[in-house]
């Protein structure tokens, strides 16, 4: 087991370093030029200004030197300074990340809580009405464009019906809680500020439903397919032949086996939620990482883009590692092999 974990960990570390190289190469060999976007046409026509700018941000150094500086910076926890905000990128990210983590986590929980039971029931009662509901729901979930769904939800529940709060994490009149974790639900609960807690929760409802849509669809689909597969296995027939109750056959025998593909998908889906919240965040004016990434991208803010992609890649690798680990716990055959 220890050997398995350590080899996986080593692999993960290598992947992260390689990932930073990829993103560095992409962002440094393509024609996009921060000089133009930052200095404006007028200043950019002055060679002295341009040279000074390039020197200041290290853009005049050879490619490998710049990568080395970037990498050794990473090793010291120094992600560089954003060209746009002129602040250390890490500080920017620390400001924006909690909003995304909160939103993604709530959305992920939502899709698990709904998707898992729905998928299991759909498989057990195949071709029944619940199966049809599950399939229709997952189909709409994976087919509807997130940004459009966000618009429709806002238009209906905020604009027309006015039963949900508008964009943002809090009402403009609410006072944000003192920052502890940056997660509003936790910070307000810790400080006993229940009014703000409710406000934050209410603001989470629409964006998390929108963000959960695709993930919910995927989890329902995968769970259903994996359960159908497991239920057709010989050991399920053996379990029935023992005289076990139907509930135990399903929950005790089929489900543990069906969880394996669901865990893989779930891990990836969570990482994708963290990274892919940009459209939901845009529509709901959510001050999260997605917005920050987008702004960095359109202003060609290299240090910020590289830091974010490095962090996102690290999250992916970490999640993959955790998935491998839970695989080893769920399936005794993994470590042995």
């Amino acid at each position, binding site marked *: 087991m220890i*050997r*398995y974990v*350590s*080899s996986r960990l*080593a*692999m993960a570390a290598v992947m992260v370093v390689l990932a930073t190289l990829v993103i560095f190469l992409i962002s440094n060999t393509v024609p996009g030029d921060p000089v133009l976007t930052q200095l404006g046409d007028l200043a950019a026509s002055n060679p002295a200004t341009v040279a000074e700018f390039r020197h200041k941000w290290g853009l005049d150094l050879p490619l490998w030197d710049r990568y080395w500086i970037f990498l050794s910076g990473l090793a010291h926890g120094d992600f560089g300074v954003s060209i746009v905000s002129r602040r250390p990128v890490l500080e920017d990210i620390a400001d924006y990340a909690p909003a995304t983590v909160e939103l993604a986590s709530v959305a992920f929980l939502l899709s698990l809580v709904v998707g898992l039971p729905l998928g299991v029931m759909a498989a057990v009662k195949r071709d029944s009405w619940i199966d049809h509901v599950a399939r229709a729901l997952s189909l709409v979930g994976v087919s509807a464009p997130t940004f459009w769904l966000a618009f429709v939800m806002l238009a209906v529940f905020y604009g027309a019906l006015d039963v949900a709060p508008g964009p943002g994490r809090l009402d403009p009149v609410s006072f944000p809680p003192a920052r502890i974790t940056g997660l509003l639900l936790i910070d307000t609960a810790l400080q006993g500020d229940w009014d703000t807690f409710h406000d934050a929760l209410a603001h989470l409802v629409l964006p998390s439903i929108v963000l959960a849509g695709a993930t919910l669809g995927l989890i329902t689909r995968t769970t259903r397919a994996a359960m159908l597969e497991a239920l057709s*296995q*010989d*050991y399920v*027939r*053996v*379990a*029935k*032949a*023992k*005289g*076990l*109750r*139907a509930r*135990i056959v399903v929950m*005790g*025998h089929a489900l*543990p*086996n069906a969880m394996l593909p669901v865990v893989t998908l779930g891990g990836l889906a969570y990482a994708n939620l963290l990274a892919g919240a940009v459209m939901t965040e845009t529509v709901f004016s959510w001050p999260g990482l997605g917005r920050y990434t987008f702004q960095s991208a359109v202003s060609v803010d290299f240090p910020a883009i590289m830091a974010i992609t490095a962090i996102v890649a690290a999250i992916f690798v970490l999640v993959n590692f955790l998935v491998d680990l839970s695989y080893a716990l*769920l*399936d*005794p*055959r993994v470590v*042995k*092999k």
Partner: protein
Amino acid sequence: MPATVDAPADAPLLQVRDLRTWFLTDAGPVRAVDGVSFDLHRGETLGIVGESGSGKSVCAKSIMRLLDEPARIVEGTILFRGRDLAHLDEEGIRAVRGREIAMVFQDPMTSLNPVLRIARQLVEAMTAHGRFTVAAARTRAIDLLRRMGVSAPERAVQSYPHQFSGGMRQRVMLAMGFSNEPSLLIADEPTTALDVTIQAQILDLLRELNADYGTAVILISHDLGVIANVCARVLVMYAGEVVEEGAPEDLLTDPRHPYTWALLHAAPRLDAETEDRRLVTIEGQPPDPRAWPEGCRFRARCPFAVGKCAEHPALLPVGPGRATRCWVTQDGGPLHPPGRVSAQAAPATTAHPAPLLQVEDVQKHFALPSDGLFAPHRLLRAVDGVSLQVMRGETVGLVGESGCGKSTLARLVTRLYEPTGGRIVFDGHDITHASQADIRPLRRRMQMIFQDPYASLNPRMSVGEILAGPLKLHGIVAGDAAARTRVRELLDLVGLPARNAERFPHEFSGGQRQRISIARALAVGPDFVVADEPISALDVNIQAQIINLMVDLQERLGLTYLFIAHDLAVVRHICDRIVVLYLGKVMEVARAADLFARPLHPYTRTLISAAPVPDPRVERTRRRVPMKGEPPSAISPPSGCRFRTRCPVAEAHCAAEEPPLMAMAGGQMVACHFPGRI
């Protein structure tokens, strides 16, 4: 749980009456079981035999009500201790399953839940019926495993299924089956997936358990030998109904239904000398279960059919304890033994002294994926120093249990694999490390027939394309027209109508596919053919047809065969010489007759003794040499003689020194320190 209404003590335990289980598919009902009736008494052992599709498994699942959609019991009763299982509600049948009737399935590798510990799977079988507390069930689980012959049961219950071999898992399944002391155990092909020595162990165990606990057993098998070995009464099923019933002594020596007769004569016998290598076969295929023919369902294939057979016969008695569904034998007459067509007694194949194939100390080691990034690679020594020769025109058999390296050896000889060491010479060409380009010209002379008729033909290619491919690649024919002509000739050669060239593999049965596979191998006109278990996936009658075809082709085309099999009777039947492999090494080499008359290696001896013979009288008198334990792993084989860990005559010397392959009298060769001791 409804109280058990016990019928009088002499009443049958199980009474199946006119059972019909149909698959209600969209395309109409498939009448898998169509009017089956039988009785089973307390403690009785009943065998059900039949080929695939005869309805024997569906029959067993119907009793347990373990039918999957769209199968349904559409008619009939299954009276079991006063209750009709066919009409019991879900809770009622649940109380019967595992408690009063237990079932063991065919494939032990998939029957246990891979993510749950053995203990949990055994314990829940007992606690589900409220007869044991969890603690009591745990203790009992260990006792049961010990009783089933699982070594170190205390540790075994803590293990997961993947840590066990197939044989061990089937013991676990038996422990599970007996855990609630059921009055009936249904075993559905329990040994089909196992090696012959393990099969013998499991069948012994089954007999003992039946005697010790008085549990009635229904044993389902396609193998008459297995049935004869265990059962006191036999049902033969064909096309969804019982066609013959009786004691194995009668039924297997004097069959009264032509189908039983055909089954019996189609299988080569381990205990019989044969002059002719051709077997008795019946024509055609079993009928379509969507529309059984009017009259006797066997009529179209029956060599004895008379006019009356147009009327569907009932299962009528033909003697004490015997019944058959046949008009021909109604008057009590036995079916005559098959007339052998041995007019042209196979010309004693004149083996040229020059070997066509020479294998010298060949090895193949596979590197296994390592445990982790830093762990060393482990080696699987699949073939570990094998030498053998195949003479022109002879048939050499390669036998051994799974994992002995016989399939790897086949792929080394045909250079699908490259040997790790040693030398392979084919007709004077050293092909040990020849590149694929160098070996291509030799491929015209050296071909292979594969085991799985469903995987060995490319499903996306028509039969014509499959056969024309080799012709074009090697430039054997010029032009498409010539290729089409040759394809027709090839199909004709293997006994298939020429119009089949346009059809795709999925339109054919297993036996027909194997014929196509043979035609493909013969397309390039080889003189040497490696056959890797070519008949092991087929039903008995189809096996016989393929054997006959291969024997015919050998005579007509002068082929040399390397024939790989695990079935000793088959090997004995068609081979001139036999090589016995164990764990990647040769144990014994001998002429077929000599090997069975006086096996010198203890492994050969136990292997022969483990193979069942479909005749209870012979079974009773045969000398049995039980094989101990399980085969060791080819990753870390035992020191010295590889067989010593399971050998009944091994001594300390055997662990210290590996016996060389020594030549004995009559050209027999054996690798044993004590040849012929057993």
